[in-house]
């Protein structure tokens, strides 16, 4: 299968840099997939699960990403997100705690600012738990 170059940059590391066959990521209105020879594009990413397939493996590589963006330019894809975590890196216990904290805070939120912050925290915690649970069970 034809490949393209994928580079995933996050705040604290270069998450992936190499060839890729297909890339799935959460866009603003649902999942978006990128294959080789995709048109030039810039799109924003929402908090959720991202998947990509490398030519040397049949397995999908999975990560939980936070907000960011994807730039496609002549078979070079640059994905910039604030953070990206593999399922095995997620501490389920911590994520569960964060989830409960965020839910609790949402109930007694004081301002609209806090509401947005808490909602983002909640979305992150949910995405982490979902992905971690799904891939750890196997």
């Amino acid at each position: 299968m034809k490949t393209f170059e994928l580079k995933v940059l996050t705040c604290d590391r270069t998450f992936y840099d190499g060839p890729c066959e297909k890339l799935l990521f959460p866009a603003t209105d649902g999942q978006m997939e990128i294959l080789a020879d995709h048109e030039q594009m810039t799109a924003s990413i929402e908090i959720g699960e991202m998947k990509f397939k490398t030519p040397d493996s049949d397995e999908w590589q999975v990560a939980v990403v936070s907000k960011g963006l994807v730039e496609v330019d002549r078979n070079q894809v640059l994905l910039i997100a604030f953070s990206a975590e593999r399922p095995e890196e997620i501490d389920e216990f911590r994520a569960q705690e964060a989830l409960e904290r965020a839910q609790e805070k949402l109930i007694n939120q004081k301002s609209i600012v806090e509401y947005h912050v808490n909602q983002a925290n909640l979305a992150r915690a949910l995405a982490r738990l979902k992905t971690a649970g799904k891939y750890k069970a196997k």
Partner: protein
Amino acid sequence: MASAKEIQDRIRGIKDTRKITRAMYMISSIKMQKARQKLADTEPYFFALQDQISSILYHFPEIDSRYFENGTNRNPNGKKAIVVMSSDKGMAGAYNHNIMKAAEDYVKDFEPGSYEFYCIGELGRQYLKFRGFPIADFEFTATNPSVHRARVIMEILVNKYHDGELSEIDVIYTRSVNSMKSVIEYHPLLPLRPHEFIKNDASEDAQYKSLTRDMNYSVEGDQDAVSNLYSGDFFIWPNPHHVLHQLVYNYVAGYIYGTLVEATASEENARMSAMKSATDNAEKMLAELSTQYNRVRQAAITQEITEIAAGAQALKRAKKKAVR
């Protein structure tokens, strides 16, 4: 002159202190190396973000956003936030002193009430509070910078900016040029200055190229594509505003993370050199004191011998007298 016992006690005390300063020196050097590594890890992300912002500005020069200096819907009457990065602990030479001086100098000409300090690090907060400067309710530390903390700080600041409570966000932090020299940096974080991104376009293009140089161009015969990176139609999803918004959030969080790491590295660097000179100084003092101790000891021995000799002589004389 001090007695031998006193000098010995002093030597023991200095040796104990030297143990501590030496240990602190070691710890700081390890922490600094870690911070350096973190800084190197975050650089590609940061440059890529800068590049994306300039790319959007390039394609949508007419974009109107409150995050830019020339945005029409930003509130110019809000307060100015000054984020000051100091450390939580002392023993770092002039590190904290320098940054506090710089912060004070910075607000010298501002009208009272038009600005507020957002302190990261306990020492700076206490100092500025003591001096009666306006301090925002904002409790964070620069020690062990984490991605999470940077995100929380960003969310607080950017939301306040978004609501018009703040009209400007500036950062003051220490950057280490090399292991010997560090400088205080002032950086206006928000609103973004579009010309800064456009003006540097050429150099950022170069950065972008170096970032993507090792990627293979699988489109054949597209050699000159490298020279005009942003040619052709530009498709942006869902819209430029949304993407720009996302970029600004990421940019600010990335910048804050970068400065946190930079400040920690400088702090540890300052502590390292302070502890190095403390250890060196302790060694010098020990050398002096041991000379002094030897002298005192020698003096005591000499005196004893003189006394014994004198005593023996007196006894001899007394015996001679008795015989006669």
